[in-house]
């Protein structure tokens, strides 16, 4: 297959499925082991300086915020980040921990642009490689398939392609041009789920975003969960398990772990807190003050939940969640 074009963006990690196979065989376990730990231990153990890290879902929805805050407290540096997350990625950038970003979209939709991204990009501090939403998800899918790339019909002809690390080839079957997306096998993935057991068998409610793909494209996978349920309960509904335990390295119990984001059927986005954050994020100094208060100023998720308003606030956002 002849390569016709190559995007000029940096490929943060060369796909190497053969090495991944070896690594996964050596490091993943089918043993039913209790993986419950607190967020401090999970981040200490499984996130390292320089890691290639990814998060799921998107925007201010089902985002692993409690884990992101712990990464900031532990000051894990020089992270390469791939993701469609908004707030959890933005706070990592705001804390100065991200050196390179596989970016598709970072903004707040109807609430406007990201001040943090603007400062980081316009100052040239943050190295950004462009992708589309589907491209990032399909790159994870390629890694989940155990192959080095996936051919697609998106991104062709655009500057999004030109500033990506994708390639264009001629299809050996049809002769048409295809965009090849390099597989992304992350060092560590973070996913916030509705429930799982102590081994990490996890269930999600609502749209599954790209949790299925990211869980299978992460060497290490940390789950934070709204609740831990019994394995008997999992066995009653095995059809609901979209992330089976052998993919999982740590289970962190984190009720309201997506705050200020929403969690389908459980609680609604905390508009008041989100707007407060966005206001603070306008200037570096106020951003720093926000982080000092809400991230560095608390030891863990439980303290954070007290700080943002405790039971009263949590009941309120719970009352706004729509049922079925």
């Amino acid at each position, binding site marked *: 297959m002849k390569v016709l074009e190559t995007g000029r963006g940096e490929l943060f990690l060369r796909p190497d499925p053969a090495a991944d196979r070896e690594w996964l065989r050596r490091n993943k376990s089918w043993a039913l082991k209790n993986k419950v730990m607190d967020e401090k231990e999970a981040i200490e153990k499984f996130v390292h300086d320089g890691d290639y890290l990814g998060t799921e*879902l*998107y*925007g*201010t*929805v*089902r985002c692993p915020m409690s884990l992101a805050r712990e990464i900031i407290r532990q000051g894990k540096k020089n992270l390469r980040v791939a993701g469609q997350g908004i707030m959890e990625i933005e706070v990592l950038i705001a804390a100065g921990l991200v050196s390179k970003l596989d*970016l*598709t*979209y*970072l*903004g707040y*939709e*109807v609430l406007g*642009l*990201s001040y943090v*991204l*603007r400062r980081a*990009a*316009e100052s*040239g501090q943050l190295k*950004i490689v*462009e*992708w*589309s*939403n*589907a*491209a990032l*998800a*399909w790159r994870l*899918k390629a890694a989940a398939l155990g192959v080095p790339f996936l051919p*697609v*019909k*998106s*991104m*062709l*002809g*655009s*500057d*999004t392609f030109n*500033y990506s690390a994708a390639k*264009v080839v001629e299809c050996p079957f049809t002769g*048409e*041009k*295809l*965009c090849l997306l390099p597989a992304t096998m992350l060092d560590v993935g973070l996913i916030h789920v509705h429930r799982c057991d102590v081994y990490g068998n996890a269930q999600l409610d*609502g*749209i*599954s*975003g*790209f*949790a*299925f*793909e990211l869980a299978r494209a992460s060497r290490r996978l940390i789950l934070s969960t709204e609740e831990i349920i019994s394995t008997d309960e999992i066995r009653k509904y095995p059809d609901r398990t979209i992330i089976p335990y052998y993919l999982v390295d740590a289970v962190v119990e984190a009720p309201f772990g997506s705050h200020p984001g*929403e969690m*389908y059927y459980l609680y*609604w*986005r905390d508009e008041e807190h989100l707007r407060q954050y966005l206001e603070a994020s306008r200037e570096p100094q106020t951003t720093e003050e926000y982080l000092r208060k809400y991230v560095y100023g608390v030891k863990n998720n439980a303290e954070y939940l007290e700080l943002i308003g405790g039971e009263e606030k949590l009941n309120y956002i719970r009352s706004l*969640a*729509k049922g*079925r």
Partner: protein
Amino acid sequence: MEYNPTELLICIASRQMEDRTSAFIGTGIPMLAAALAKKTHAPELAVVFEFGGIGSLLELLPLAVGGSRTFYKALAASSICDVMEAAQRGLIEYGFLGGAQIDMYGNLNSTVIGDHDRPKVRFPGSGGANDIGSLCWKTISIMRHDRRRFVEKVDFITTPGYLNGPGAREKAGLPAGTGPYRVVTDLALLGFDETSRWMKLLAVNPGITVEQVKENTGFELIIPDKVEENAPPSSEELRLLREEIDPGRLYI
């Protein structure tokens, strides 16, 4: 009946969609346009959100394209790969887009103004826009109409329109028969010439002149001999928008 510019945009955008088809919807105006279409001429328009919501009734207006309201009372709560792959297989008819800049071939920029690595302004980036613009059959862009946005050349092609002219999409490898279909602005409704792929004025909005459209466009538009005038929002359209679709006035 009095109406505001957002209400006009929503009404004109909603009239572009046919019944019993599918549309990729983003938050904001496209969502309201789809909701209005469903309540008027296109009750079986299937709305698809890029993170997996399929067939929502849009009874509650989503704040985020991955938010819970994108699949409230929907027909399926699926995944990003599933819906993007449906578009890649040719199943999604319309896709809605927007951006900071658009050029005469309908290329869109929502990434940067200035140099990519040291931009003057950094915008959010493609998100699903590039996929929608690459894979949906017909894309509809919703834009504010002024010379800063309607430019000769976009700083960055985030989402491909007709690129640099006839045949360019196909040459780049994009699926045949896809591309920009309509541009809905506060001044006019625009389309694209079948042969040259240049942007073409189709109709002006109520009270707007062809001259005003030209003055606010930073490139030469094709102006046909006869330019229609868009009908203003009807009282029924406005009632639906204000009382049923967005009673909390979140967007309008």
